[in-house]
């Protein structure tokens, strides 16, 4: 342990760099329950550069980190491209007011040729490393390009085969693919963002005629930025929200990633090719790093709300990342380049992921341990350690890490192993115990027949059966066996009462609560540490009463025979199968793994079905309805319940308004006249 610590300290020493001041933003990582939790700073701003060798930036729109280690900035406002170093030295200037009008996108190939998307000239202009224009590409005249389609290139990338992928403003057909090998020939459109179809549009599709439908313009959301990795995967980001805000497109143009977090107005994307880490930034300086599987690693919101702190932004337009995970960000309003370095913490996380992706699980153990040392709540480190330990056959330890990491699949598999092991060791004893128990009961039964030594106990049970309330409760079970008869008993013979129904309801509530909060980790969906008993009570009793009242109201105007009491009891007693389900679930969820999930699903299906059936039959028999009428009544009742809810909501809103109004008048009077 000590050696490890010292090694870690040395590592930190090597990784560190001169940071400045307090970090203005908090960094978040994914928590075990799918919410964000705070973590150590992962990236710290080390430098903000506004001038390179005396040259000031003006509304820069894009940045590219090239193979020679230099940065290329599209200095849009000054109509030029700057080749600079990360420490602020100017290497070379490309383009002039004659050659470039509004350079907004930039890409540099391995031979250091510079491809510039010039929005103003509506051309792609290529410079060689000496700064000469060696080629320009204008609007393709291919018939497939589309008659009305415009060509206003804003961003671009180039793949190893020499195909350019160009984002053109106002052209929503997709990424324009041009071949540089065959003189800019148009290859086709690539990976358009699917159009955002709203609920209203879907509704319209259902009811509109074909003519009307043709008049609805469904325009796909246009893409904001594009990046490419060394494997030729294309990354795009768009302004839209949802998991498609960032996409990774394969050669066929289909999306191969589904990020587990998203934001809106994303303006920049960069990819760290060696590891596949993807960085996105939105216009307000909300940065996210995803691993190659689309899991959010780090997120920080560095918006400059006017405080002007280093490392915050007004309008991010471009981003690049080098092979050491250093981030370079340009902001058009600040006209600056900000350099972010990964901290020792982020370095450990990256290293662990790199080992993990390379299948070197054993090697990933050490960096994961370092990460956990700095932040024991870091989910990926917990999951990562779980994976490592699972492979080392240390299932119980793995379970604990998976639990801490909130990784249910991993936990399930580790638990399966632990349970199998337990069964393996204990099955024999278990069988013996069952057999012994069985024999014991048999023997006792026989003995009891002869000597009646259990008579006092059976006496008590019989006596208890004669206590009215217990009898009424027991009667609820009879409803399950013979609903017709039982309903008659409830309606005519007073075999049940409000009291007994309330008791069943309370038992139901207790089972509901137990099921909600004591369900095993694998099957529990609630957030840990959050208990909302009052809300649960309001939910259970509220819905129950709403259903009962609605049913009663509808039944009473539809010639139903049942009294409110009967419906109340009928509904309460119909809940018995669900109570049984809750108890079964409680046991099963604590001993089953995902492999045997079927049993729980089956039990749920049977019990809920049974409960609904009982409810329908109760309503039918209590009111003496036909089945068809009963179903009609139930639908009507649900509708009634909806209306009651809406009414309550309206009353609530109105009363809030009234209170506001009165207190406003009071406030105004006090401040205008009294003071």
């Amino acid at each position, binding site marked *: 342990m000590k050696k490890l610590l010292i090694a870690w*300290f040395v590592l930190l020493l090597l*990784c560190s760099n001169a940071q400045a001041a307090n970090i203005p933003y908090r960094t978040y990582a994914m928590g075990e329950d799918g919410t964000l939790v705070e973590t150590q700073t992962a990236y710290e701003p080390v430098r903000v550069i506004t001038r390179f060798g005396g040259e000031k930036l003006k509304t820069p729109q894009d940045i590219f980190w090239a193979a020679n280690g230099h940065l290329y900035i599209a200095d849009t406002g000054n109509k030029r491209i700057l080749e600079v170093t990360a420490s602020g030295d100017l290497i070379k200037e490309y383009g002039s007011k004659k050659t470039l009008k509004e350079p907004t996108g930039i890409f540099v190939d391995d031979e250091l040729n510079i491809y510039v998307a010039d929005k103003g000239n509506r051309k792609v202009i290529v410079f060689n490393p000496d700064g000469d224009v060696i080629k320009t590409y204008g609007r393709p005249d291919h018939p497939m390009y589309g008659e009305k389609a415009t060509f206003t290139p804003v961003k671009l990338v180039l793949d190893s085969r020499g195909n350019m992928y160009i984002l053109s403003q106002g052209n929503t057909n997709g990424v324009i693919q041009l071949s540089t090998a065959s003189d800019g020939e148009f290859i086709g459109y690539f990976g358009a963002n699917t159009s955002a179809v709203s609920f209203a549009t879907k509704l319209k599709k259902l009811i509109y005629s074909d003519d009307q439908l043709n008049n609805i313009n469904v325009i796909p959301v246009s893409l904001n930025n594009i990046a490419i990795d060394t494997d030729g995967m294309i990354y795009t980001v768009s302004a839209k929200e949802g998991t498609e805000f960032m996409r990774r497109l394969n050669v066929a143009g289909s999306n191969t990633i589904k990020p587990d977090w998203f934001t809106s107005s994303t303006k920049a994307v960069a990819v760290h090719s060696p590891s596949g880490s993807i960085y996105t930034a939105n216009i307000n300086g909300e940065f996210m790093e995803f691993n190659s599987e689309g899991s959010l690693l780090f997120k920080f919101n560095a918006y400059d709300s006017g405080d002007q702190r280093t490392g915050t932004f007004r309008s991010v337009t471009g981003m690049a990342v080098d092979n050491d995970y250093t981030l370079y960000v340009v902001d058009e309003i600040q006209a600056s380049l900000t350099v972010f370095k990964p901290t020792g913490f982020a370095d450990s996380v990256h290293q662990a992921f790199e080992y993990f992706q390379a299948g070197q699980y054993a090697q990933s153990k050490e960096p994961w341990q370092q990460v956990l040392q700095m932040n024991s709540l870091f989910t990926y480190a917990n999951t990562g350690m779980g994976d490592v330990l699972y492979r080392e056959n240390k299932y119980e330890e793995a379970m604990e890490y998976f639990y801490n990491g909130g990784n249910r699949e991993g936990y399930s598999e580790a638990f399966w192993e632990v349970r199998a092991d337990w069964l393996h060791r204990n099955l024999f004893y278990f069988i013996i115990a069952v057999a012994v128990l069985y024999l014991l009961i048999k023997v006792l039964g026989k003995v009891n027949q002869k000597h009646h030594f259990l008579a006092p106990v059976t006496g008590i049970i019989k006596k208890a059966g004669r206590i009215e309330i217990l009898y009424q409760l027991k009667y609820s079970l009879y409803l399950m066996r013979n609903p017709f008869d039982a309903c008659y008993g409830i309606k005519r013979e007073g075999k049940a009462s409000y009291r007994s129904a309330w008791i069943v309801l309370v038992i139901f509530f207790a089972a509901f609560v137990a099921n909600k909060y004591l369900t095993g980790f694998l099957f529990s969906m609630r957030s840990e540490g959050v208990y909302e008993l009052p809300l649960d009570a309001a939910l259970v009793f509220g819905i129950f009463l709403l259903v009962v009242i609605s049913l009663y109201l509808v039944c009473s105007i539809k010639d139903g025979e049942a009294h409110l009491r009967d419906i109340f009891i009928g509904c309460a007693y119909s809940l018995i199968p669900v109570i049984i389900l809750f108890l079964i679930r409680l046991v099963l969820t604590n001993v089953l793994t995902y492999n045997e999930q079927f049993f729980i699903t089956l039990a749920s299906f049977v019990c809920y079905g049974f409960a609904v059936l009982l409810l329908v039959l109760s309503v039918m028999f209590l009111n003496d309805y036909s089945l068809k009428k009963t179903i009609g009544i139930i639908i009507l009742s649900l509708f009634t319940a909806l209306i009651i809810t809406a009414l309550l909501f309206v009353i609530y809103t109105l009363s809030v308004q009234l209170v506001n109004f009165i207190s406003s008048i009071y406030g105004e009077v006090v401040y205008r006249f009294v003071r």
Partner: protein
Amino acid sequence: MFAKTGAFLMVLMMLLSMGAFQAQAAEIPAEYALIADNSRFNLYLREDIMAIILESKASGERMYSSVEDMASAKGNNTWKGMYQSGIVMEYIENEKKSGIQADFVNTPHTIQYAYRKNGFDAAVSFDAIGISFTVILDMDEAGIHVTVPQSSILEKDAKANTLQSLQIFPFLGNTLLGETEGYMLLPDGQGSLIYLEDNEGQFGAPYSKAVYGTRIGVDGITQNEYLTEAEKIIMPVYGVVHTKKQIGFLGLIEEGECGADILAYPNGVRTNYNWICAKFTYRMLYSQPTGPSSGAVDTITDYPRKFDLKLHFLLQDGNDAHYAGLASAWRQYLVENNQVKLADTQKPFDIRLEFVGLEKENMLIGTREVVMTTYQQAWEILSQLYDAGVTGLSVSYRGWQKGGLSGGLPLTGYKPADSLGGNGEMQNLIKNAAERDIDISLEADFLSLNGQENPIYAYQNMKTITTKTLEWKTYGIVYEIMNYLPPGRSLGIAEGTAGEFRREGIENVSITGISSLVTDYHEGGKYKDSASMMQDYRTLAALYADDFRVSMAVPNAYLWQYCSSLYDMPLSDSGYLYVDQEVPFLSIALSGVMPLYSEYVNFQSDYAYCFLQMVEQGMRPSFLMTWEDNQKLKNTNSRNLYSTRYELFQDLLIDWYEQLHAVHEQLAGASIIGHQADGNLRKVQWDNGVIIYLNYGELASVMDGVEIPAMSYKVVNGDE
């Protein structure tokens, strides 16, 4: 060859520039008259606009309180009034409820000077507005003192116009664009410098911060889950140094901090000038909502904040005209005026451990306790460290009381939590620790109020001046919000608690909460000004300082005199874009005077960097410690404490202690007198002759012929 020519040119330029300033030194503008001096400086006054010139007797260099070249000055009349006028006032026209500037250039006024040796009383009157006050100026060896007594402020027709704010010599030390070399010193965190360079209009907004932190009762609490808070001003100072001319001053707010803001305008922000000043606000104009959702009326605070404005300019020239020189002068001022307690000056080096005792998490019904460090476990940690050679330990216990860290707020007495071991174990811990010379200090927060756990206090909370309850979001899942107790209530429970502490033999107390809050507020339907809050907190601090050894969390400077040590101190500044360099001004000023403990090392993302900062500043590290794993905290309000487990930090603690102890052994009782930064290199000079070189860079470097490895330091004894 090149070098030779370069040297020749430099000498030539120096000669030329000397010639230039000698020519300038010859003529003080005719409107100015010499009115005071001390052994190092002359003070000239221009009567009509109360402008001053400071002149170094040794070099003849000057600093002006007005813009010199008004002929080419740009800006509207209001700005021109600001450029020149020695005092700028803002008043509120009550009818219109708007603030208006009055100055000695644009506004009719009379000033009657009554001179005496080295100073004057000036009776200022803006007759048309109906506001008058007296400005008292004195010069002595300690510099210039300017006072505006509260009693001299007269508002003839308070119904028509009332005083809003005053700025005294706002343009003192001003420079145009990048004409003069030097910097402005901001009291941001440790301290920051804005170089007097031409910014080419790069920055849009000035630095404007209230001394001793945002007045949350006026401006409300703005919280952002995603951004960290900028550093508060805890030292009521600001400064300007013209490095080439070797002249500078430190503006020190002696009284009136409760109404003071520090404003710093780098060139390009509104004007072409660099200027920094303190602005004293007496009354505030605010919008009083009349209902929960809409409607508001403009309102003025009921009475002016009650303070005598006292501003003291500490002057430096020659080699002392440097931020380290200003810090040293301030240190001397603090010591001479008993603004710091000298009790623990010689306290041997130690590291601070803060234990977290108890937290709470939700249960089906109510909450349950989460035990993180029992008293016995705390002792276990201490003895393990002690046995490993870490003998200098200073300990504070957080969440030691019933209810724990967030459930037990405010602290209402001596109530050790039973689940941590109860009073018996607590007394054992204190006794055992005392035998090894370790102080156990109990954290006391008399300000934060957990209304959920302490409903009796919930109806006596602090309100904003618009009578809205002050709430602070915890972003936690157990207690979502916290409130504040008003100072009167804090004082009441603090008195009771002090009695119980005394009875139980507690000797050390760490006070947090009240130590860093100053604001105007509303209590019981009445407006109370920030001066009254400071007075109450002063009483509270004095009460504790009498009987206990008190340490305070980032305390505002007016409380330093009651503290034996300060903790949770910033290591850097807020990192504003317009700041060119951060400097450890605060650490320099308090070096050798009071032990300073840093903010928690745990949550720093770069321990090695943090370690070098400790060495550079002579700061002592501070760690937050728990015995249990942090997983246990994840359903509590302290889920953001993601790394505090002792086991993981043990080796680091021992290692840091050994290294820092070795450094501090050479520094015992000494103070910093010089500080220099050159790229990634730093040079810190101590007054006992020790020099520490540091290298924050990734490559080994050489400074003064001393080679310093990458990310490392070297201590050089002056005698060597």
